[in-house]
């Protein structure tokens, strides 16, 4: 199956997964490349969202051929959980970033290697 | 049960010193004089109790009297209380003519040694506690009727002695204490092996009912008694029961063990070595000079006066009665070691320059008489199969133990008296003490003459009885043992000359020599008095001792010779005029041979 045919097909689980994967990879790359702590945080959010897309997609009865084996609302619930978690995490992370700024006068993550082994 | 009933009184005698140790332990520290007084008071009370024990009692006095029944050969006042029943271990005590004199000696010497301890001023509290514990151990050994209990007391006495030498001793005290401890422990281990071997081969069910009754066993043990021959064997540690087993005709101890030798042969050998270490006999004697040289004076007195006697006591109480056949087989070994000790100790004593070492070697020599006297198996056809000579030897050996207990304790004390004044013991640096300390010299001469075996003093009786009994066992040993008296005279007189005689004192601290004090005289004078009393009236000891010792000899003779043995019956020794049968009667008998006559039913 060529990439083009893939695009021409109706939206299926695979498409969601590709979106999720792209989001995930973008997030990873963002985390790995951004030196700004906020950037990194954004990368984290991307990764979380990529994962959340996957969950939603897998739990959707419309997208799955074996719908009679549905997992019910589990996927949705976990997605909701991820969103909440992301929010909480963002709050904590921002607090950390503030503290970090207080001590280092910057939020460049490369500057802080106190946790080096 | 009153205070004088045997279980109470005997236990009281054994454990009162331990109670005293506890009391001293509870007293506030720092009051040295008080500790000594309390310890002395306890030893005095124990001595009084043992004296009560020795008072001749009436035969029908009942169970509440613990007085000694004179003329009784059997174990007296014996009792047995369960202790560790699962292993047939009982708390069994008792006394007889063999142990009582030694118990008296122990309690008496403890009082004197405690009196001699007044000069101790280092860690007095600990000293008094250990001293009293030592006394408990010693008295326990002499009273125990259970082999295990005997062993426990044996070890109990060891530890205080170790500390008493190791803490309060002279410059090389650690070496001496460890040497003492190791030698004695080695002996103890051998004893333990023999103890277990005897225990696991014993069986009460093989005893006859009379023997069972004579063994003073606990009633639960008697209830389990089942002579049918099918019952499980009932092991025992009871020394009397073990003795009955050893002397019986089909003794379980006669089974072969290793090297073609029986269990009792090995048990005898192990026990003998264990006890000879304590005696001490050559060649396991070298702990003694070191221990004596380093030990403080009162501990030397106890060591020489009592501890050495335990070896002899063990031999006569355990080795001989329990293993009679082995004793017969190994009598040559016992006697030879005894004679070697006598000669060797005397020679070694002559070469010493340290006063205490000399006395220590003289102990080796004198205890050799004990070993020799115990060893001589002087029953033979040449004297009509009577045990009389053997009885004389064994009684002499036992007497020698008492005599040596008095004379050696006295000698060590006297050495201590002069050591306290001049702080050295070098024999070549004395001299002229006669003029400076006349009373001391007089007492010393008496005590040393007692050791020399001068008639009229205690040493003579033991030595002469032992030596006279040897001839019928071995003529060579007899001659050698007689020659020792030349050597003894040599080293003792030479010592007296170097220490007491001469124009002046030659050593250091001459200005500190002062006459003997009242306290010292109060310790030395009783020893000299006993040396004289026992030398002039030895029956004071023999009246107690002889029946038990004679019974032992008769038992052994019976066990060995059966019908041939005729005990104390006066026979053809020629000393008693017999009514000779008329000559023609003799001639008549000669016609018919005796053997055939006896063979007919």
């Amino acid at each position, binding site marked *: 199956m060529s990439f083009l045919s893939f695009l021409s097909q109706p939206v299926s689980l695979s498409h969601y997964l590709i979106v999720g994967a792209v989001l995930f990879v973008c997030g990873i790359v963002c985390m790995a490349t951004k030196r700004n702590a906020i950037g990194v945080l954004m990368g984290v959010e991307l990764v979380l969202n990529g994962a959340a897309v996957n969950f939603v997609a897998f739990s959707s009865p419309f997208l799955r051929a074996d719908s009679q084996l549905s997992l019910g609302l589990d996927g949705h619930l976990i997605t909701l959980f991820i969103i909440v978690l992301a929010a909480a995490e963002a709050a904590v992370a921002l607090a950390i970033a503030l503290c970090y700024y207080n001590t280092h006068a910057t939020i460049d993550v490369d500057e802080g290697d106190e946790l080096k082994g | 049960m009153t205070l004088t009933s045997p279980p109470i009184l005997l236990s009281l005698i054994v454990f009162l010193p331990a109670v005293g140790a506890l009391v001293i332990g509870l007293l506030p520290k720092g009051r040295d004089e008080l500790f000594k007084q309390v310890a002395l008071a306890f030893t005095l009370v124990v001595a009084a109790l043992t004296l009560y024990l020795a008072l001749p009692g009436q035969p029908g006095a009942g169970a509440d009297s613990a007085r000694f029944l004179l003329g009784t050969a059997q174990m007296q006042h014996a009792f047995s209380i369960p202790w560790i029943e699962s292993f047939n271990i009982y708390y069994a005590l008792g006394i007889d003519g063999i142990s009582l004199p030694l118990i008296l000696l122990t309690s008496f010497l403890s009082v004197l040694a405690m009196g001699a301890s007044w000069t101790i001023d280092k860690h007095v509290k600990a000293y008094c506690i250990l001293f009293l514990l030592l006394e408990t151990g010693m008295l326990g050994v002499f009273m125990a009727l259970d082999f295990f209990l005997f062993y426990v007391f044996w070890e109990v006495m060891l530890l205080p002695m170790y500390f008493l030498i190791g803490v309060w001793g002279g410059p090389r005290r650690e070496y001496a204490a460890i040497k003492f401890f190791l030698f004695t422990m080695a002996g103890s281990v051998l004893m333990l092996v023999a103890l277990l071997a005897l225990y696991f081969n014993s069986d009460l069910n093989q005893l006859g009912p009379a023997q069972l009754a004579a063994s003073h066993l606990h009633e639960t043990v008697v209830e389990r008694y089942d002579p049918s021959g099918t019952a499980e064997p009932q092991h025992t540690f009871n020394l009397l029961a073990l003795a009955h087993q050893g002397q019986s005709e089909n003794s379980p101890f006669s089974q072969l063990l290793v090297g073609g030798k029986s269990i009792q042969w090995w048990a005898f050998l192990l026990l003998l070595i264990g006890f000879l270490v304590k005696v001490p006999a050559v060649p396991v004697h070298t702990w003694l000079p070191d221990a004596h040289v380093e030990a403080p004076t009162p501990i030397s007195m106890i060591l020489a006066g009592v501890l050495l006697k335990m070896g002899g006591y063990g031999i006569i109480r355990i080795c001989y009665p329990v293993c009679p056949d082995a004793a017969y087989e190994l009598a040559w070994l016992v006697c030879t070691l005894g004679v070697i000790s006598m000669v060797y100790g005397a020679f070694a004593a002559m070469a010493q320059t340290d006063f205490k070492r000399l006395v220590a070697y003289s102990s080796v020599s004198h205890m050799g008489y004990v070993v020799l006297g115990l060893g001589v198996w002087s029953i033979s056809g040449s004297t009509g199969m009577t045990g009389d000579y053997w009885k004389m030897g064994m009684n002499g050996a036992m007497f020698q133990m008492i005599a040596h207990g008095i004379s050696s304790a006295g000698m060590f004390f006297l050495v201590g008296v002069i050591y306290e004044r001049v702080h050295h013991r070098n024999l070549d640096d004395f001299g002229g003490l006669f003029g400076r300390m006349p009373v001391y010299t007089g007492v010393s001469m008496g005590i040393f003459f007692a050791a020399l075996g001068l008639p009229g003093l205690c040493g003579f009786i033991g030595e002469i009885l032992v030596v006279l009994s040897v001839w019928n066992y071995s003529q060579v040993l007899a001659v050698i043992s007689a020659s020792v008296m030349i050597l003894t005279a040599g080293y003792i007189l030479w010592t007296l000359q170097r220490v007491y005689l001469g124009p002046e004192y030659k050593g250091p601290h001459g200005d500190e020599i002062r006459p003997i004090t009242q306290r010292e005289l109060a310790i030395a004078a009783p020893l000299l008095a006993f040396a004289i009393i026992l030398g002039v009236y030895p029956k004071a000891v023999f009246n107690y001792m002889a029946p038990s010792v*004679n019974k032992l000899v008769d038992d052994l003779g019976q066990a060995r010779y059966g019908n041939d043995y005729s005990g104390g019956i006066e026979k053809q020794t020629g000393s008693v005029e017999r009514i000779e049968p008329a000559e023609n009667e003799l001639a008549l008998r000669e016609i018919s041979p005796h053997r055939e006559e006896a063979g007919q039913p």
Partner: protein
Amino acid sequence: MELATLLPLLLLLAWLLPLASFTLIVFAGPRLGRAGHKAGYVATGAIGISLFLSLLALACWLWHHPLTPSHHAETHAAASDDPADPTHERSEHEQSAPHTGSTASPLTGDWYTLAEFGSLRLTIGYYIDALTLGMFVMVSLIATCIHVYSFGYMHEELEDVTDPLASPSSGKPLVRAGRFHRFFQYMSLFCFSMLGLVVAGNVAMVFVFWELVGICSYLLIGFYIERKSASTAANKAFIVNRVGDFGMIVGLMILFGALGTFSFGDVAQSDGTVRKGIFSQVRPAENEHQLIVPDGLIRMAAASQMNSIYASVPSNEEAEELIGRRVAELRKVGTGYWLLVLAGLGIFCGCVGKSAQFPLHVWLPDAMEGPTPVSALIHAATMVAAGVYLVGRFYPVFAPEVLLTIACVGCITLFVAATIAITATDIKRVLAYSTVSQLGYMMFSLGLGGWAAGLFHLFTHAFFKALLFLCSGSVIHACHTNEMPEMGGLRKKMPWTAWTMLVGCLAISGAGIPAMLGMKGFGLSGYYSKDSILAQAFSVASQSQTYGWLFYVAAGGAAITAFYMFRLWFMTFAGSPRNQHVYDHAHESPASMYVPLVILAFFAVVAGWKLPSLNLPDLLEQARPLGTAEGISFAGEIAHPELPAEHRSHEETLHRTVSWIAFGTALTGFAIAVLFYLLRIFNPETVRKWLAPLHAFLIHKWFFDELYEYAFVKPTLLLSQVAAAFDRLVIDRLADGSARFCVTVARLDDVIDRYVVDWAANGIGRLTYRIGLWLRQVQTGQLRQYVVMIAVSTVALFLLIVVCRNLMLFQ
């Protein structure tokens, strides 16, 4: 009261009184008057009462057993002339010896039992016969005289004494407190011991008191304890005696082991039975009191046979019967005889020590270090004679071989000691060697069968030798020196001493007029006793030439005796003073000293006289052991001496010859002494130069001391050093070595623990630590690296899983 109860009681009292005196002085000595001088009265009183009691006892004895003149000897002479006829001899014997005649049976009994085991017992008992009583009187008499004498001699000890012979390092003479009471304390103990020895009823009791007199001798020789020489001499005396006692113990062991008794005589028991003593076992009445080997000794010698008989026969009664017959067979082949000989030699060994016989004579001259009264009492009159007394007492047990040994030892002793006495210059040493020599005579006589002669000489010698010693003490007291070359001419200063001493010299030389022209011989006590000894020796020599030399040596000894005794007297009392200082200060001793001299001189003259109702030879004849009157015809196993009966020596012709020989020899000795020392016709110095090697040999006492020093003392000390070294170097090293071995093993254990087990445990720890250290490098602290690593790792894990799964699928 009966004699059998009265005599033991009297003697018991007489015996114990000195002990009471000793005890009193021990406890109250210094408090008895000023400087304890009343102790002397206590001791003298005690021994004086003892003397009275023993005289009483002797009187009682003589009342019951009056002396019969020894004519029965002559009646026997006929019998012994015809030894081929045994029946004749036997009948003769039964008539006279055991029950009738002059032999009074001894009183025996036990006072006290020390210990008993079955049939064996050690007792304190008595054996009282004429010999016992005679000795008792003699000892207490001389002791009383010497106690009195000591008041004078020891009076210095009442004050502080300056002892010039003690040598403290400061060089100044030592000043010490006096020890008057101590002297008498020891003397009382000695009297008690000596009387106990005399009265002893068994040989074990003899041994007990033998040792006690030995220790008294030790204490008194070493009385001047500050002098090294005195204490050394005391040690020497005691130890040399112990050498003899060693032999005695062996003898005791044999006799006791075999016979089961120590008693001399038969002792009646309280239950009516009679315990047989040694004498009646060795010389049973059934055998006419002739020596046989007793059953016990045969059984002992054949012990293994006895054992096998017991083992082979079921009942003891039968075994005993069989043994009885076997013993009779064995007796015929001489089994056990050597044990009898050995026992006799052993007992004699003790006597050799006590009586200073060759080869144990070396202690007696040194014993002169003691105060002179001690030398007189102990080392001349009584204790040293105890050996002779015991030989006499034990005479029935000695086999012929033993008697021969005794004779030879006595002969050697008398000659050796006499020769040494010639050159000695110390007045007491001359007397000491003379004592040794005279004791040799006694032993010699006893050994040759002259039982009565030997003991007779014991008595007479006791008197004149005590006298001589006391005289020498008087001289020393006056001159403060022992050296005869310092003296001379003293007879003018000390007449009592000089003339009494002359009596002593005459007595010891045997001065007298031999029988001639039908008159009986007459002389001082020594004349009789020495003559009877020589007569016995001559009688032996005339019977068998083998032993002839013994007589010639003894006769020669008599000449030497006379020579050195008069040499002593001339050097001391005659001539002119050699040292004027000494002479000027000399003075006659006080009455307390010369009165005893006079008394003893009296006895030295009359002790040998044959008064009809009281004389020593007849008294001794009463005590003659049963069965010995006929001499020795019992052939031994090794030697076969034929010792003739003693009464043969009384025969007129033989006795006259001997008297003249003795007279001649004594006169010769006297004459030489006169030539050398009185008239000074010959100069002793020149003779000394002529015979220089001989003189050196004699002045060194035949080198006995040196010989013993190298042969016995040094090896013994060496051996003792070896024993001590063996202890230190071998046994201790073994013990220490085994301890060190254990320590080494422990160290090894420690090393293994530390370097193997610990190393392994620590190594693992350290490895983990290292890995941790290495791994921590991953922990950079760089957030972004972490992210990349997580991502990469996740992918890598994913890939790994895929690869693994594929690999598994393709398998």
